[in-house]
């Protein structure tokens, strides 16, 4: 489902993706398409695309951990308010995520893994986990003032 709503926000676009790693490329393409409509520099666009892709990857890796095959979809909504606050919402039907337990690894402890959440926190101003409203289980909100 694709949806564009420009009535209350400068930009508000929503798209659904099958929850699997092959969708991450489509997630990036969608994000790039949306950011093409916003006047921000390319470096910031690249960072925002990375943050979105990392959050989507976390859904695939963690919310759907041990779920081998699923046709479930996740939804990503990118909105830019009139005050230039960017809000990116992620909705999924995976295992409930306890936001208090989501932490990146100690960055000085160099080992593979655990960097995605660190990247998201580096790039965005705020990261908030909420219980999703039906039919969703998890609702993650990333915000950044542009």
């Amino acid at each position, binding site marked *: 489902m694709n949806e564009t709503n420009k009535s209350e926000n400068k930009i508000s676009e929503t798209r659904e993706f099958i929850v699997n*790693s*092959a969708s*991450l*490329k489509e997630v*990036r393409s969608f994000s790039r398409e949306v950011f093409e409509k916003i006047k921000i520099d390319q*470096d910031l666009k*690249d960072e925002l*695309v*990375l943050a979105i*892709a*990392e959050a989507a*990857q976390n859904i*695939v*890796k963690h919310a759907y951990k041990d779920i081998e095959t699923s046709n479930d979809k996740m939804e990503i909504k990118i909105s830019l308010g009139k005050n230039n606050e960017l809000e990116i919402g992620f909705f999924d039907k995976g295992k409930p995520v306890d936001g208090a337990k989501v932490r990146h690894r100690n*960055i*000085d402890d*160099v*080992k*593979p*893994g655990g*960097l*995605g959440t*660190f*990247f998201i926190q*580096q790039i965005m101003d705020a990261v908030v986990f909420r219980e999703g409203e039906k039919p969703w289980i998890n609702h993650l909100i990333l915000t950044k003032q542009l």
Partner: protein
Amino acid sequence: MTYKVSEEGNISTVFLNGEIDMDVVDKAKELIMPLIEAKKEVHINLKDVQYMDSSGISVLIESHQKALEVGTKVTLKEISKSVLKVIMMAKLEQILNLD
């Protein structure tokens, strides 16, 4: 992601091309790790990698650590601007061998 491997003496150069994310990291690992395990010095050329996420960075860390373990070396060559930015965001520029 596509790739090419060239050999010169004990140096294997892996040219990666495209976007490196969770979907292709297993392919990248299957390509790079056997070279390290064979104690080759491995150069990973990242000139044509336009995007790398945390999964790709994990492969670089794992390759570097495996190389130290077996007594060889992994060097990252011609790192694209976008990949360098992610390496620096991960504070790995002093850890990995960059050239």
